[in-house]
């Protein structure tokens, strides 16, 4: 098989899911309640006593930003409340184990595995196909069929392109294509469902390599008749490894001198940097955020690495069709159309309208999840499986990372503006809050931008956004921040959140772009995440970061000059804002570092 950059990471072993602990859960809940109270006390004091009425243009946006940010904290506490993993059961054998037969003859259950691809290297897809072929299933009479869903139509018609069909044939798996790309990935899956018959089907992306027990560990959940899908954690096994700082310095500066090299080794030899430089590790999301949503039956599908019940998505599709027909009939009745005309129009609609199992949307997975959860008649359930059952590739450059995350942001925001789950009929309160939490996190640039600009505004206007950095300010603020940090640590026990926090702040610009784009009604595009390194497209992403850091440094220099000459009105204000700016700058710098990151040993294989 062809060699790729990721072959060097093949030996990496996945992490183990965080073990559930009742004691830790109660400790977290206690800390969460304390944080909520401390936060409310802090904000009450801020609103009532700390506003600088002489600079409301500055004071008001900051306090609004803090309040909005606190809403996010409350939603996170609700999300993190407790684990509720579903009981694991052996894999299913017969259809009667997963659904009522209603007089039909029983038979072994049928399972399809879909590998969706568009433009990825066919040899990369071959790895996924081979791993899918290695999947075990304890019952030999259960057919497990693998299909490559090629939306790139690489069936050999264009000799200048790679031939995906040939690879599928060589590997002995099914190959399904369509003549258009309507509905993007959702359309691709719909096309596959139209042509296959599996009672359960697994969705894998082109780079998703399932482990041998993927199906063994996931199909048992479907014994619960209302389980619509099971999502397994996505584990990126090719995140950048930690690099010794001394080697990075020597390599970047091209140091050849032995003495200098030895000195650098002595000073920096034990420090490691750049581990997961792109913040790709999604463990916090899958092992905590999504897994804890099992409590509210609100874990949503993330596409790759999930197994679905065909009946659930098809029921949803048929309901959508029925709704369309009802809407048409109502319209025609309003126009006083004759009954035979109504019947004719309905028949035409039935013939022309597609049955769409997955919503045609840039975020088809989360949107379909919302619709299934909101189905009052069926009350579909979702399960976030705790253990890793497949491995995937992560983005290897900043441009691809931003494209991928911008699509997530735009998709989620589009749902927020058009079909907000907070007001969606059929969802329970817990589900509403959990979905709203996801959407709310994409509004973060609104407050992050204020937090980033505040110290800079102070440096140049010498105006404080609060009445003063008094004892009262610090007593409320410190209590709240310490409790908040303790709560997050307990909630995400065992997972380092440092990189996530950094990207949360430094991702403000692309999230702001996404927010503006969706608010202006721009159509959300489905960008396929590139699986190869995109070079030289970074400056546009980090320019805002450089501007903010540059302005901050200029502001600090100006303030130091004022202090030195005795003209600075508030040294305490400068100290507080300088500290605040440095915190921001460190977090912003991660994206700049990521933009210019190169591995110490260049990947000589294909990337």
């Amino acid at each position: 098989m062809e060699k790729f950059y990721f072959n060097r990471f093949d030996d990496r072993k996945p992490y183990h899911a965080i073990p559930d602990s009742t004691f830790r859960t109660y400790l977290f809940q206690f800390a969460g309640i304390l944080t909520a109270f401390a936060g409310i006390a802090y904000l009450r004091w801020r609103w009532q006593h700390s506003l600088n009425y002489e600079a409301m243009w500055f004071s008001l946006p900051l306090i609004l930003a803090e309040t909005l940010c606190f809403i996010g904290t409350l939603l996170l506490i609700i999300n993190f409340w407790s684990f509720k993993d579903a009981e694991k059961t052996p894999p299913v054998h017969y259809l009667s184990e997963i659904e009522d037969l209603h007089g039909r003859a029983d038979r072994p259950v049928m399972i399809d595995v879909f590998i969706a691809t568009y433009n990825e290297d066919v040899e990369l897809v071959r790895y996924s196909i081979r791993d899918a072929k290695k999947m075990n299933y304890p019952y030999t009479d259960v057919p497990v069929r693998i299909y490559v869903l090629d939306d790139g139509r690489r069936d050999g018609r264009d000799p200048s392109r790679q031939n995906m069909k040939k690879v599928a044939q060589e590997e002995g798996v099914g190959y399904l294509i369509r003549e258009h790309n309507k509905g993007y990935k959702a359309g691709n899956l719909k096309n596959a469902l139209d042509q296959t018959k599996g009672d359960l089907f697994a969705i894998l992306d082109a780079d998703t390599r399932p482990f041998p027990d993927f199906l063994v560990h996931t199909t048992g959940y479907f014994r619960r008749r209302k389980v619509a899908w099971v999502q397994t954690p996505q584990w990126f096994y090719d995140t950048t490894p930690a690099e010794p700082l001394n080697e990075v310095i020597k390599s970047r500066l091209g140091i050849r001198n032995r003495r200098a090299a030895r000195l650098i080794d002595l000073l920096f030899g034990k420090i490691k940097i750049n581990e997961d430089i792109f913040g790709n590790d999604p463990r916090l999301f899958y092992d905590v955020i999504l897994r804890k949503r099992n409590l509210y039956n609100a874990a949503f599908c993330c596409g790759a690495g999930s197994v679905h019940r065909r009946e659930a998505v098809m029921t949803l599709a048929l309901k959508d069709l029925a709704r369309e027909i009802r809407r048409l009939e109502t319209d025609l009745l309003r126009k006083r159309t004759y009954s035979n005309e109504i019947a004719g129009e309905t028949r035409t609609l039935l013939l022309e309208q597609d049955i769409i199992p997955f919503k045609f949307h840039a975020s088809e997975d989360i949107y379909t999840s919302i619709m299934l959860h909101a189905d009052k008649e069926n009350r579909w359930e979702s399960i976030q499986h705790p253990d890793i059952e497949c491995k995937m590739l992560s983005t290897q450059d900043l441009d691809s990372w931003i494209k991928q995350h911008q699509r997530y942001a735009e998709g989620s925001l589009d749902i927020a503006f058009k079909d907000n789950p907070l007001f969606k009929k059929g969802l329970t309160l817990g589900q509403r809050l959990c979905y709203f939490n996801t959407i709310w996190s994409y509004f973060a640039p609104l407050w992050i931008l204020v937090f980033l600009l505040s110290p800079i505004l102070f440096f140049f206007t010498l105006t404080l956004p609060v009445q003063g950095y008094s004892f009262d300010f610090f007593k409320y603020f410190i209590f709240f921040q310490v409790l908040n940090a303790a709560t997050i640590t307990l909630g995400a026990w065992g997972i380092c959140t440092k990189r996530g926090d950094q990207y949360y702040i430094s991702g403000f610009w692309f999230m702001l772009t996404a927010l503006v784009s969706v608010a202006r009604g721009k159509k959300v595009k489905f960008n396929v995440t590139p699986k190869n390194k995109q070079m030289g497209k970074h400056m546009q992403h980090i320019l805002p970061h450089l501007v903010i850091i540059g302005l901050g440094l200029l502001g600090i220099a100006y303030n130091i000059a004022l202090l030195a000459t005795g003209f600075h009105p508030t040294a305490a204000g400068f100290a507080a804002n300088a500290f605040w700016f440095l915190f921001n700058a460190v977090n912003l710098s991660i994206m700049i570092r990521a933009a210019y990151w190169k591995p110490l040993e260049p990947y000589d294989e294909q990337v």
Partner: protein
Amino acid sequence: MMSRYKFLLRPLFYIFSILFSSWMVLWIESISPSDFGKYGALFSTPVPAPPGGRDQLKKLYREYKSGRISSDEFEKKFEDLLKTFPDDPGNVPLDSKKEKNEYTDPGR
């Protein structure tokens, strides 16, 4: 016997957490500085100032001007504030000053 009441543990835990949090908030509010805020600014020359006196005076004035407190309330609060000024020669009850005609009240 105890297992019959086990179901009460969780609600009791939440009630305790809420009560403890409420107490904590009240406690935070009651904390007053020892010497923090004794000085007008953290890094400036330590000019002794009454704790929060200037700020409170400003706040009181703003509240009175904006009509959020009546003149009676203002007077009472102002007196209370004056009492907090240590070794202030003016720290004499307003009433006694009125008797000595040291004050003329422009508002009446």
